């Protein structure tokens, strides 16, 4: 009996050894992801990972990449850059991931991108918008690419929308005002508006700020009312965003256009709290279920997860497809070759063997370019955001005009 067991175990060992070369062809391509899966930002991580899983499933069902399946290896940065760094090292040295995606917070992305560059692992961020990630200080981070628009592009698109809106509203926007938090998000908005307002010929008539979680915003609203701009640009957290719109009503002031830089205004609680009073408020969105290119995928996504696809899931979904296309073009998973393939990629309209780009733009190409006089490296220069407006208590895409049939509600009714 003992002999039998010994014999069997030797046989088993032999089989394992022998089967390794046979499995090598089938070995999956490993995508490392580093997002917050615990801590206060976990909900955001969940949406991102859904987008990734959805793309991986879709690609694997169609036969994978170069005959190999995709596999996702998840890392958790819990919102902490130091943990992001150690997770990146773990995924690269122990899990041997071929490519990397991340992160939600730009500060974590920065450090993970440095680790990836050091080990020669190509990385694409789907959602880190901080301008500085691609500035001259980060020129040497040459394994790192960015799909999403930069913060300043968000603001540029808000101004672009104001300019284009005249086509539908019949009234040209000449004066603008900023209403925002005194914290970093607000300073960023003010900086970007200052950067582009002259290019669009807008006159900034008022900059009104407040401290987060304000007890009262009536003074701020009165200041805006006095300045009476054609449009108000804002960035606020959810509590202040809600109070702002309520105070507009209370002070009997209905600005013709309100355009927000997402954040609190696109929080699900915003429409929930305000109901009809939110009608007419517009905001930047990276994706909206009614986008012409996004309707189909949203239906399938919703059937799978029971929720609408959001900007984060749509952008992460797209990054997986970029990796697929680049690895196929490179014909290998070698880091340098894949990096060169990503750099050379030019996707127009749709992915080979896949869908149309589901985001509000129709081309993806990573390039070095100048943005407001400063060189930037390896960003998707065609990326843009969409503008959605609350109409009948729902977010409806209104811009870019080519991506929607819905017209702008003007002036904003706020009721």
């Amino acid at each position: 009996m003992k002999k039998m067991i010994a014999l069997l175990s030797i046989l088993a060992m032999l089989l394992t050894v022998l089967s390794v070369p046979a499995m090598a062809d089938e070995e999956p391509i490993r995508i490392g992801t580093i997002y917050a899966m615990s801590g206060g930002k976990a909900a955001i991580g969940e949406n991102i990972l859904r987008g990734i899983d959805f793309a991986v499933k879709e690609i694997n069902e169609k036969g994978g990449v170069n005959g190999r399946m995709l596999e996702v290896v998840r890392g958790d940065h819990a919102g902490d850059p130091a943990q992001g760094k150690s997770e990146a090292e773990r995924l690269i040295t122990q899990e041997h991931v071929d490519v990397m995606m991340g992160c939600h917070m730009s500060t974590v992305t920065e450090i993970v991108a440095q680790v990836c560059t050091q080990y020669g692992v190509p990385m694409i961020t789907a959602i880190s918008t901080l301008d500085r990630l691609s500035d001259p200080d980060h020129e040497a981070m040459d394994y790192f690419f960015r799909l999403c628009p930069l913060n300043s592009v968000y603001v540029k698109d808000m101004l672009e929308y104001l300019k284009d809106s005249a086509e539908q509203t019949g009234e040209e926007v000449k004066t603008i005002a900023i209403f925002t938090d005194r914290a970093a998000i607000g300073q960023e908005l003010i900086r970007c508006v200052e950067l582009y307002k002259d290019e669009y010929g807008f006159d900034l008539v008022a900059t009104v700020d407040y401290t987060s979680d304000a007890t009262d915003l009536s003074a701020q609203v009165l200041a805006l009312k006095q300045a009476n701009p054609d449009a108000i640009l804002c960035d606020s957290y959810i509590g202040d965003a809600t109070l702002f719109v309520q105070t507009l009503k209370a002070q009997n002031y209905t600005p013709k256009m309100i355009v927000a830089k997402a954040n609190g205004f696109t929080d699900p609680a915003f429409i929930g709290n305000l109901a009809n009073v939110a009608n007419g408020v517009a905001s930047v969105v990276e994706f909206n279920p009614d986008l012409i290119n996004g309707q189909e995928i949203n239906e399938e996504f919703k059937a799978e997860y029971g929720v609408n696809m959001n900007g984060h899931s749509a952008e992460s979904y797209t990054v997986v497809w970029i990796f697929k296309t680049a690895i196929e073009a490179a014909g290998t998973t070698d880091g340098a070759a894949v990096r060169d393939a990503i750099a050379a990629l030019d996707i127009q309209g749709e992915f080979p063997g896949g869908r149309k780009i589901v985001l509000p733009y129709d081309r993806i190409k990573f390039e070095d370019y100048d943005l407001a006089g400063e060189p930037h490296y390896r960003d998707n220069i065609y990326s843009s955001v969409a503008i959605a407006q609350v109409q009948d208590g729902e977010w409806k895409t209104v811009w870019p005009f080519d991506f929607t049939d819905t017209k702008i509600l003007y002036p904003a009714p706020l009721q």
Partner: protein
Amino acid sequence: MDIFLQACVNGLLMGGFYSLMGMGQNVIFGVMKIVNFCHGEMLMVGMYLTYVLSTTFGLDPYLCVPFVAVLMFMLGAVIQHTLITPSLGTKSFTNLLFLTVGLGLLLSNGALVIFGSEYRTIPTAYSQTYISLGPVNVALPRLISFCVLVVISVVLFAFLKYTTTGKQIRAVSQNPVGAEVVGINARRIYILTYGIGTALAGVAGALLTGFYTIFPTAGASFGFRALIVVVVGGLGSIPGAFFAGIFLGLLETMVALFISPSYSDLIVFITFIVILVVRQMIIIRRK
């Protein structure tokens, strides 16, 4: 001119809340000579209580006010009896400071665990109703809240001035030893005053829910303003706190109107410091 009138009304309506918070703080300070650092969090608890009452039983937020007042009174009484009274014996200010600050942290983090970090509101049929009084516009919930809190202030004042219990409270605040000598149970008065103080904060929270969002740290900015009100209005003085609250509300909106909204907090705090310094100088000169 219209804008000026509007700003006055806005300041008045907001000031009412600062008054209510300041009076609650002052009742407690007057009697026990302790600063209640979790006063803002008590307002937050009042908000969530209103939220729970109105979502579970479908009560109108304003109908919740009496229930919130009673429940908050009980909460305050329990805290006083089990935590604060024993600490009073140590005569250590730091002890009570840490106790109330810690209690505040416990409450706001407790709310975070129970309710999450979402910003909630209690929508009512009239929450988006606005009334025009000549050139001035007022949100109906703000107006109702203001009326309710004026009534509460008057009742509180009358209670302290004319009832036996009110007189006992004032006696303890003026001279605790003397009060005990004439047979007043100081411990009972402590429980009563801390209960009243918390109930006032809770009621302020309940009244806010008509037009303000509910979140775990909602009390912080109100709690801080309550401290300013107490200092400006005079420690322990109920009418002082009432007028100081209104003054603070008006100051905020006036600075925002005539200087800039960006400076309103800054100037409020500078005024606060100036008043503190001037008062100190007057006290020194008197001596």
